[in-house]
């Protein structure tokens, strides 16, 4: 098979004389240079002719604007071209394999899009009378039933709008349950080192003190250390399973039992549910709350392509505390919304609301389409193929890159490598930048923190063996260049629209708002 990477630049196509191949426009054939919108549009021009507004007496009490607002005036084709040109400098799942670990960048099926655009789903308003949106409410209700069934849990809160929002919802349920038991004094949440970074942030945001639990050498939670820390001040634990080392927490049931025996609750970060959907039901592992990223496991677009959606499944113990509103299907098939006005005494312990309305309707439609088009057997195969693909990458590259947990058994949905074995002066970032030249978005780097110079690769079930082989070939080639001390790698990327950016300067002195260069200079 060919080594040529169909998804990006072919190195052998690069002109030999880079210094002298400048074009008049700065464009290189289909690779178009594009200035910032403020630099191409003048405030003197406009794409639309609008009559000068009639003078009206201001009632703003002297606070009215007294200088031009400074918006660039572009015609419609100019504006369309601007954003289309910029989009061509970007990478997307529709262009190629997107190995960003922990993010589950899988294909977004077009059938999802077709369903989400049906007017009955796309053109509804959350304040419409419920009798006029029975189809949309039916989607929410049926998706809720599927999520409960797939996770073996008791209830689900559909409204959280992303993974971390779901985490907060779950932790607020735990807090409400503890307060109802008169144990609101429990103020510590335990978070293992191998958890997602949002977990400690969520616990802290909800008012808890966060304590670390170490990982074992094989990359799993140190169960003995966790058990030793349990006590009357511990509200619960937040465990990511499969964890960010790409490993399944085999002792999950033992952990849950120990936490429950100590009076705490178990939150599971379900961001990596893709690896176990259809194979493992978190409810069987004693989990009390888990968010599900519809935009990961259930293929709705994300990473700039669409909003997230993070429903939270809840155990029987936590369900009474879940947020409003939720859908309720009556025996005659009619669906109503249970809200503050209609809840009566049926759900008296709800901690409140996560958002104004009913959640991410467009994502519910896409996720349910994905579930129904796969069926139970198809979802099981999703998990199996995603794990198989990750293990194929792990075993194909462990001879070239250091794989710290290679001996810990099969990985789950993602393979992790470290920068161990790279020569002095070369690091993970050089590998990542080299991959850009090969036409790939880089993998997740320097995360999780427990692995030095981590490279986290998640291929998902989307990719064929041919696509995996090509990616493995590219990553192997870049890694071998690093190991051979190829200095050109340290200034990669060479073929991207921009060379290596000064990320340190960008972080130290961020320029977040465009300023007229003349005015900016005058200000300094």
């Amino acid at each position, binding site marked *: 098979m060919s080594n040529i990477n169909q998804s990006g630049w072919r190195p052998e196509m690069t002109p030999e004389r880079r210094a002298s191949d400048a074009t008049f426009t700065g464009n290189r054939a289909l690779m178009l240079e594009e200035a910032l919108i403020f630099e191409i549009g003048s405030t003197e021009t406009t794409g639309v002719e609008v009559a000068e507004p009639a003078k009206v007496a201001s009632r703003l009490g002297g606070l009215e604007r007294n200088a031009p607002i400074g918006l660039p005036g572009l015609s419609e084709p100019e504006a369309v071209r601007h954003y289309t040109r910029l989009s061509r400098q970007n990478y997307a799942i529709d262009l190629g394999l997107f190995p960003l670990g922990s993010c589950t960048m899988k294909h977004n099926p077009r059938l999802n899009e077709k369903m989400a655009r049906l007017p009955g789903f796309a053109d509804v308003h959350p304040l419409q009378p419920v009798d006029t949106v029975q189809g949309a409410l039916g989607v929410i209700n049926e998706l809720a039933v599927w999520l409960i069934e797939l996770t073996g849990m008791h209830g689900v809160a559909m409204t959280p709008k992303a993974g971390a929002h779901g985490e907060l919802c779950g932790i607020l349920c735990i807090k409400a349950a503890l307060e109802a038991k008169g144990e609101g004094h429990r103020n510590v949440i335990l978070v293992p080192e191998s958890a997602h970074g949002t977990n400690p942030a969520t616990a802290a945001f909800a008012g808890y003190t966060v304590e670390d639990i170490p990982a074992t050498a094989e990359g799993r939670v140190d169960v003995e250390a966790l058990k030793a820390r349990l006590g009357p001040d511990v509200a619960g634990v937040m465990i990511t399973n499969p964890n960010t080392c790409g490993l399944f927490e085999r002792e999950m049931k033992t952990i849950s039992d120990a936490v429950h025996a100590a009076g705490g609750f178990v939150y599971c970060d379900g961001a990596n549910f893709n690896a176990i959907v259809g194979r493992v039901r978190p409810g069987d592992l004693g989990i009390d709350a888990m968010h599900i990223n519809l935009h990961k496991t259930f293929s709705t677009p994300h990473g700039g392509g669409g909003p997230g959606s993070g429903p939270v499944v809840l155990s029987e113990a936590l369900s009474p505390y879940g947020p409003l509103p939720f859908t309720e299907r009556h025996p005659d098939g009619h669906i109503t919304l249970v809200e503050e006005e209609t809840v009566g005494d049926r759900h008296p312990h709800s901690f409140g609301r996560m958002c104004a309305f009913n959640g991410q309707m467009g994502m519910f439609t896409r996720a349910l389409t994905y579930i129904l088009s796969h069926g139970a057997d198809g979802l099981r195969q999703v998990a199996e193929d995603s794990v198989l693909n990750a293990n194929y990458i792990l075993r194909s590259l462990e001879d070239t890159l250091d794989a710290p947990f290679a001996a810990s058994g099969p990985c789950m949905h993602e393979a992790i490598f470290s920068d161990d074995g790279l020569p002095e002066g070369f690091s993970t970032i050089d590998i990542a930048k080299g991959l850009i030249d090969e036409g790939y978005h880089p993998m997740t780097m*320097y995360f999780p923190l427990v692995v030095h110079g981590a490279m986290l690769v998640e291929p998902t079930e989307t990719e064929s063996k041919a696509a995996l082989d090509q990616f493995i070939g590219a990553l192997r080639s870049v890694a071998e260049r690093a190991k051979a001390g190829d200095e050109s790698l340290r200034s990669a990327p060479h073929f991207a629209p921009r060379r290596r950016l000064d*990320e*340190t300067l960008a*972080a*130290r002195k961020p320029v977040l708002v465009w300023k007229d260069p003349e005015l900016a200079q005058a200000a300094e």
Partner: protein
Amino acid sequence: MRYFTEDHEWVDVDGDIGTVGITDYAQGQLGDIVFVDVPEEGKTVTKGDEAAVVESVKAASDVYSPVSGTVIEGNADLADNPGLVNEDADGEGWFFKLTLSDPDELKDLMDEAKYEAFVAKL
């Protein structure tokens, strides 16, 4: 006299005044540092408490106070130039100074030779 912790902080003690920073090894592990948050004057810190925050392009970390005491000065230069920690972790890149409330705590810390041996094993 300079003392070290296993979390890679150092404290330089002169009378009852201690100057705290992170070690050169620590800055090397963090990579390019982009932000440092130092404690304000008057803040009381207990040994082992989170006293400062350091962020690099790779990670954010808490800096623990190696000793207990009252902060008398945070290094204001780090706000504009956090890169000082990368350039001179042992000197100009210090984080804060404090008045020690319990000099006996120093006994639990490592001296330079012990710290070097500790790092060599990592």
